[in-house]
Structure formats: C-alpha cells, structure tokens
C-alpha cells in the first residue's frame, strides 16, 4: 500500500527549508537589482558580479569553438568559479552564470549558413533553430551509476577502443569531467572552511557532511539519496553553465531506489528526504517529470518518492519545474495533492498529457513503449532521455509574417479573396518552413565541430561509445522540431476579412489596407470591427475553421518531407514560449485588429478575450480549442489556464479541475500550465512587484517569481487572467 500521507517536517528541517526560501528571495532581489528582469524561471544561479574569467579564442574570428577549446574553457571555468555553499542546504554548489557570458563560444564563419538563408530568416523574422543548443535530455542514471570517476574511465576506455584519428571529442569530454572533479573538490574544501568557522553544532555538522559527501563524489558514484541529490545538483550546475540546459529526468523513479535503500537501512526519514529534494530545487529549476506509465503501460510510476518531491516543492515555495504525466491510471491522490498545493500558494506542477504526446509520437513511426518514455523535461517539450536528440523550442516559424507578405502580394492583384490570400499565405509559410529545414541540414553537419553538446554527450547512450556528438549520430534518434507561432493572430485575421469584407461587405479590401497602413490611426471603428468578430476559440466561428486549415497546412509543410539534403525527420510543434511580445515586435498591424508591434497570439491558443456574445469565457472553451488545434505529432502545444482561486477553493472546485485535466488529455491535448491566482494579489504585484516578491506564477511551461518578470511578461499573465473575467 503506497503511503500517500503528507510529510510532517521536524523543526530542524522546517527551519532549514524556510531558511533556503528566505535566502532565495534575497539572492533574487540582488539579481533583480544587478541584472534587471529575468523572463525565464528562477534558474537558481547565485550571481557574482565581480567574477572575471579569461577567454582564450582558438579561431581567427575571435570565437571559441570545438571540443578541445570548449572542454578547456569549461574545466578552467569550473575550477575558478566561486564555490557557493549554503548552510541550510543539504547540498553544496551553485552555478553563477552561463559561461557564454564570459566567453564567445560560436560557430566558425566558414561553417555558417549562406547569406541568402540569413536574409530569408530576416525577412520573415524567423528563429531558425540553426546552431541551437541543448533541448535534449540525458539519462541521469548513466551518471548516477558511474559517478564522475566512472565517466572518466568510460571516456578513456572508448578513446582507446576507438582510437580515433582525431581524438578531439575525447579530449574535450575528459576536460569537462576533470573540471567537474576539480569543482567538487573545491566545494568540499569550501564546506570544510565554513565548518571551521561555524559555531552552531547542527550547522557545523551539516557542513562537515557536505564536505565528506563531496570528497566521496569526486571519484565515486553516489550511494545514498543525499549523495544522488548532490550528484544531480552538480549536473545541474554544469548543464546550466554550458548553454543553460535545463533538462533532468523522471525524478521520482531515478531517486526511488536510493530512497528505498536508505529507508530500509534506517538512515533516512521522510522529512530528511524532503529537505534533500528541497535543496535540489534551491540549487536549480531543471525540468523533470513524476508519475506516468511504465514502458509496457502496465502500471503507474507514482511512488512514495513522487509525494516527497511534491512536498519538497510545497515546503520551499520557490519556482520549481515539475510535471505530472497524466494518464487514466495516474495516482489520484498525487493529482489531487498537486492541485491543492497550486490553489493554496501557487507551488504547483504542470500536467503533461500522455495520450496526445504518446499517440502523437507514435505517428512519427516509433513504438508505443518508446513513446511512453518520452517524458516532459523542458518548459513545453519532451524527450526520450538519453536516446533522443529532439532539438525542440529553438525555432519560431512566425506565420504572422507569412500573412504579412501574402497581404503585400494580394494588394497588387486585381482578384482579391480569402481563398487567394490563403494560397499566398501557404506559399510564404512554406518558404519559412523550408528555410528552417535547410538550416537544420547545416546544423547537423557542423555542430559537432563547433558547439558540441559536451555535457549531454556524457549522459546519453552512444556519443561516448562512438566518439560522436549527439547531434550527428551519437544517439540513435534524431528529430528536429519546428515551432509555428501566431496561429490565432492569423486565423482571426482571415476570419475578419471573410466576415467583414466578403460576407457582410462592411468595408473593402482597399479600406482595410488603408487602415493597416495607418496602423489603424484614424480607423478605430474599422479596427474594432475587425477585432470583434467571433474569434478562434468561439464555437462555430469562421476563425475556428481558419485555424484548422492553417494548422493543417503548416503541419503538412513541416511533415511531408524531411530536410532537403540529409532527409532529417521534422516534428511540427505550435509553441511560442513567453515570447509573444518579442515575436510581435517587428510585425506590422494585422487584419485581426492588432496594431503594429503588439504581441502575437500564443502557442495554438485563442487570444485573450476571445469569448463573446452568449458564450462567455470558460476554461473548457479554451481547452477545447487548444485540444482540437494540436499539431498532432507528439510535441506539446500547451494550454494555459489562469483560474481564480476563489472558484476552486469552494467544494467541488478541485474535482472539476481534475475532470478538466483528464478530459483535456482524452481530447488530445498535450500540456496544461495552470495558475491559480487572485485578482487583487496579481494587480498589486503588477503595480509594485516588491509588494509580493514570492508570488509564484506559471508563465508557460515553467514557473517563475512574478516579480522577476519584465513588464511585458507580467502583462501577459495579467491579460490572460483578466480577460476571463470581463
């Protein structure tokens, strides 16, 4: 019988976790003052503004590139960077900033893409994905089983076995591991130094334990839950330092054996375990999943460890990026507990939907058992950890610009219709998609020799064994993702033209162009006329039909063939992170009433305020639209729900939300990002972020301190929330 009870913290661990929470707020406050806003999650780094690091370029262009140079820089960086130890934490170390803030690690000019491709990307404001980093995930078990010493031995074994003509791969990877061993030794030394000065016996003892644990981990694999957590924290430090990676793994399942062994040995209590996990969260906000199906689909993975992870998240009350993989048999208590925590104080998880993700992934030709292991380890994206190079979330195919150029084409034509406009839109969308595919071919050819994944290579099956970067055959599964954006912006624009110009005849094409050219200045009534149609998300709307049509073409453009040269597999997605303001920043006014440079729509979601007439806003209205407009091949197109806490805190509120999550899963949705907020607190925090420094919100697939976000990002949350009420 699975123990699902809440962990009761003893005063010692409660105080330590509270101390970590307070320290996180202080660290965050300093970061905000020195850096300004952060439009990502907390990232966990401790900023040392005075730290200096010498870059040693190895290319005439002044950049650093390739295995050896990058490995050398990482080793030296890990050796030199300050060793942070927090006396309230069970673990030592923290990262300080990405190495790329100190070193220009780049692509050699001779390996860059042709000028014409760059011009195309510029014309359509495309985020091409070429040279994108990370966005893949390792299997942390590889490291947990071998330790840093074992990883070094493995590298040396395969170096000798393969005896490559150019051993740069192994040189670089060895330096990374040696750098980590030096870093861990440094952390241990710092813990001992602090222990010598510590007068509090409990704190002294904790620092000694951190020092001893790290001394062990320099060479050896972890033996206990605490050591496993320390290994993970160091992995997070390294992963963030080199290119801000954020992917972890199926955390509950990877830690479960350590937990069970320690409990059986009588050296671990649940509140200690909560403290360990809270310390991992304090260290960083890497993405991980809990629960989900076993590969054979026979049982749910929820364990006592899953509950401990939730309780740690709830106890420390800082941004944490945990997803629950929802399926019909997911542990009911786990799901309910997660929602209760979200309602209580925003320390919740997001919900990765198994049906949309697994059935979608299968459509790419993969077996269902493999699809079940494709877990959520990014803000919106999933990966078969250790086996797949999925490169998601690094592209943006801005369909708003495809529409813009289609409008420029049609204004010079004598026959104007939405049918003709759609033809032109498809032409431009295809150009955008094809240009990204061309860039991916180049990416595949040159990344290994320029910016190899020297961290993830260590934690994947194949790269070390083959001496190949994971992007170029190191792993067996290569997928390249293209994310389309502005679906609702474009669908609403088509619907507005069809309704107001073609069906009702209220304005002409020329009048619309005049209004667009003037950015609607002096044409407010036309702007409102175009805006206030039944927009995407409204039942039976023209815009809904356009959204499906646009989605279908976009998916076809991505999917009907791979990249032109190497025939690499493409998986289409519809996702925009939180960058809807940035993505709209160069886009002129659109026929949906959007003015110059205003944000575009997010993901495949309806725009805020889409519900009108007798169909007022409801979470299900939005959820239905998002589920039905999925790209459908296993990459997430998330649903964001910002729900008034007052509604959910009443009896039956949580039950309704559980029903909504399961139903969205069954309707083909892929990810649910949930905020439970009160209007009062949100508006107060927007007005004066310092008033609520610990208000946690879910921006998209990641959580963040509301106060850390820029005004644009805060406004997105406000718009989403308030549009449902008025």
């Amino acid at each position: 019988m699975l123990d699902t009870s809440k962990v009761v913290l003893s005063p010692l661990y409660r105080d330590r976790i509270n101390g970590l929470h307070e320290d996180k707020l202080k660290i965050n406050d300093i970061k905000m003052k020195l850096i300004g806003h952060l439009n990502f999650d907390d990232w966990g780094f401790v900023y040392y503004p005075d730290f200096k690091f010498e870059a040693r370029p190895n290319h005439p262009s002044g950049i650093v590139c390739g295995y050896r140079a990058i490995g050398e820089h990482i080793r030296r960086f890990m050796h030199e960077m300050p060793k942070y130890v927090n006396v309230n934490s069970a673990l030592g170390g923290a990262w300080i900033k990405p190495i790329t803030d100190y070193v220009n690690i780049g692509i050699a000019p001779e390996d860059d893409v042709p000028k014409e491709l760059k011009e195309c990307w510029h014309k359509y404001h495309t985020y091409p994905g070429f040279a994108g980093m990370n966005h893949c995930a390792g299997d942390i078990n590889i490291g947990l089983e071998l330790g840093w010493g074992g990883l070094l031995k493995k590298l040396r074994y395969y170096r000798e076995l393969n005896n490559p003509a150019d051993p740069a791969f192994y040189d670089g990877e060895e330096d990374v591991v040696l750098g980590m061993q030096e870093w861990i030794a440094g952390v241990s030394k710092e813990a001992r130094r602090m222990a010598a000065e510590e007068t509090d016996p409990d704190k002294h003892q904790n620092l000694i334990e951190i020092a001893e644990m790290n001394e062990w981990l320099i060479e050896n694999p972890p033996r206990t839950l605490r050591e496993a957590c320390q290994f993970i924290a160091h992995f997070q430090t390294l992963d963030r330092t080199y290119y801000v990676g954020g992917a972890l793994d199926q955390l509950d399942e990877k830690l479960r054996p350590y937990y069970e062994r320690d409990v059986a040995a009588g050296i671990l209590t649940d509140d200690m375990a909560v403290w360990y996990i809270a310390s991992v969260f304090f260290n960083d906000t890497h993405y991980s999943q809990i629960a989900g199906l076993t590969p054979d689909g026979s049982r749910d993975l929820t364990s006592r460890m899953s509950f401990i992870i939730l309780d740690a998240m709830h106890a420390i009350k800082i941004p944490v990026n945990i997803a629950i993989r929802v399926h019909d048999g997911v542990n009911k208590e786990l799901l309910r507990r997660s929602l209760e925590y979200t309602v209580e104080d925003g320390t919740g998880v997001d919900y990765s939907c198994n049906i949309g993700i697994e059935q979608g992934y299968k459509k790419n030709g993969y077996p269902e058992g493999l699809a079940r292991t494709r877990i959520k380890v990014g803000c919106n994206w999933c990966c078969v950890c250790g086996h797949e190079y999925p490169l998601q979330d690094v592209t943006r195919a801005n369909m708003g610009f495809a529409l813009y150029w289609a409008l420029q084409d049609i204004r010079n034509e004598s026959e104007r219709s939405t049918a003709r406009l759609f033809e032109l839109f498809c032409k431009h969308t295809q150009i955008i998609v094809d240009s990204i595919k061309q860039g991916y071919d180049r990416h595949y050819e040159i990344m290994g020799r320029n910016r190899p994944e020297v961290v993830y290579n260590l934690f994947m099956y194949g790269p070390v064994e083959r001496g190949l970067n994971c992007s170029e055959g190191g792993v067996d599964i290569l997928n390249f993702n293209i994310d389309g954006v502005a679906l609702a912006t474009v669908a609403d624009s088509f619907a507005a033209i069809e309704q107001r110009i073609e069906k009702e005849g209220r304005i002409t094409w020329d009048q619309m162009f005049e209004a667009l050219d003037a950015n609607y200045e002096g044409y407010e009534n036309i702007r409102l006329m175009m805006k206030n149609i039944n927009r995407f998300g409204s039942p039976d709307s023209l815009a809904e039909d356009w959204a499906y049509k646009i989605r279908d073409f976009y998916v076809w453009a991505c999917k009907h063939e791979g990249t032109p040269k190497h025939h690499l597999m493409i998986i289409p997605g519809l996702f925009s992170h939180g960058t809807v303001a940035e993505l709209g920043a160069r886009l002129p006014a659109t026929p949906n009433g959007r003015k110059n440079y205003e944000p575009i729509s997010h993901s495949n979601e309806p725009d805020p305020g889409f519900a009108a007439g007798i169909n007022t806003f409801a979470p299900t209205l939005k959820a239905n639209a998002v589920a039905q407009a999925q790209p459908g091949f296993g990459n997430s197109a998330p649903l964001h729900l910002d729900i008034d806490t007052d509604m959910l805190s009443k009896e039956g509120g949580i039950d309704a939300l559980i029903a909504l999550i399961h139903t969205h899963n069954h309707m083909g949705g892929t990810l649910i990002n949930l905020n439970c907020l009160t209007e009062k607190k949100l508006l107060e925090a927007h007005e004066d972020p310092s008033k609520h420094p610990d208000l946690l919100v879910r921006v998209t697939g990641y959580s963040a301190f509301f106060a850390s976000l820029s005004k644009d990002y805060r406004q997105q949350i406000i718009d989403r929330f308030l549009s449902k009420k008025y």
Partner: protein
Amino acid sequence: MEICYGNIFNIQRFSVHDGPGARTTVFFKGCNLHCVWCHNPESIPSKAVIEFYPQKCIGCGECFKVCTHKVHLIAPDGDHLIDRQACEGCLTCTDTCYAGALAPVGRKVTAEYVVKQIETDIPYYQSSGGGVTFSGGEAMLQIEFLSKLLTECRKKGIHTAVDTAGNVPREYFEKILPVTDLFLFDVKAADSEVHKMLTGVHNERILSNLYWLADQGARIFVRIPFVPSRNGSEMEAIADILSEIKPELAEVIPYHKLGAAKYAALGLIDQCHDESTPSDEEVEEVLTILKNAGVNARKS
C-alpha cells in the same frame, strides 16, 4: 429536431456551483420575481435588452444612424443617453457597436443550437459527474423550450438540472419532472408577506410546488440566498420547512456584489447597493440553524 425557439442570455461552461460536477449552465431570459438582491438583473425582462458601458464608447455615431426608434440621444453636454422606454430590443445598434459599449442581453436561439453547445462539453460531464443546468431568469417560464432541451439532453445521456424559483403552475413541474434529474429550488423566505416584500410575489404557490416535488421523490438541492438585513430573520422558519422537505442538500448563497456593475449598465437602481457581503461567522450561524434542523447544509 423540430424547431423550437427560446430566449437565453448566456451559456456558461465549466460552471462548478450549479449542481454536481462540471456543468454547462444555460441562462434563460425572463423572470416573474423581482428579488431586491438579484445579481442577474439583465435576466428579468423577457425581451432582449441592451447594456451600455459608456467608458467603451468611441463616439463613432453608428448606433444613432441605425436606430429607427430614437433610443440613442445626445445630451446637451455631449453625453450619450439611452431612452430605454423606446427600445424594442431589436439589437440593431449592438450589431454596429464594434467597441462593445452596447452589448446585447438576450438572444433568440433554437433548441438545436443550445443542445449543440451543451454537448461539446460532454467529456467534461462524464469525467466529473456533471451535466447541464438550466437557470435564469426563470427557466420554467419558457416551459416548451425548456422541456425540449431537457428531453434532448436526456436522450444524449446528459445529466439535467433545473434551477427554479418555483413560481409557476404545477403542470409545468409535472411536464418536466420525468426528464429532470435534479432541481435546484430557491427558498428565499418562509413568510409569504416577507417573500412578497423581497421578491414581489407571495410564496404559497412556490412552497406548494416544493412540497409536491418532494412528495414525488424528486432530487432537490434547496438554494437559500442569504442577505442578512433582508431575509436573515427568516432562516429559522426556512429551516423548519426544510426539516419537513428533507432536500438532499441545502446551499446557503451569501449575498455578493458581482451584479452591481450590471445595474448601472442597464440604467437600473440597485436596491442593495449599500448591502455588504455577510461574514463567514454569519454564514456559519445560518448553517448551524439548518443543521440543527436536520438539514444537510453547506455554503455555496
């Protein structure tokens, strides 16, 4: 489905407080009570009405051009005035108001259209034990339309609830009882004179219907709007009635001010503008009264 029309003003999906589970609540136009605390004053007239939000008006003048009833007037100071007596509810003006300053309340729809909207959320009803709730206004005043909707929903296996104040002929209840799974029955006062003062009508017929429904074995949730200064003194007597009726549940609905803005938009006077929301302690006292009478009660 044979064509059957009705007047509604809102379809609210994922409603979690109008019966069990996640529900779609369909709000009917028209009510024969005039409760002083009504938070849906737009529901009372049976015909369509317009709401006016002057802060959204961009002064385009389109509504003046299209209105043939001279409803829209310009005051000497330039303000946009509305002559509501002249309004026939044609809603031509709201069609041209892209700014959303004029919003229609009420729309004539077919039962087929409403059922189609309801059935889109069937998966949510199935996973939550929810269904559809017909509310208002007074849904039972459009008995043919309501009966049609209930029948069609029943055919599709959708759980049905009717939220009613009960002030309708007994035959109406007889007609819909076979196709209604749950009644959400309002009890606003026990004393008939108090009831008339608060709602404009006596309550003999209402209570008679409630007793009859209970005798038929209908599943009933009683809903008690609680406005301390208006019906607070009625709670003991209401508890006595409910101890006889024995509803499955009694929900106490504390007065709230969410309807305040609507009064202004409709050009109406909010008779409860100085009323405050009852405290948790006051609500708890009412719950205790009900529970002491053997009634299963909770706060809504």
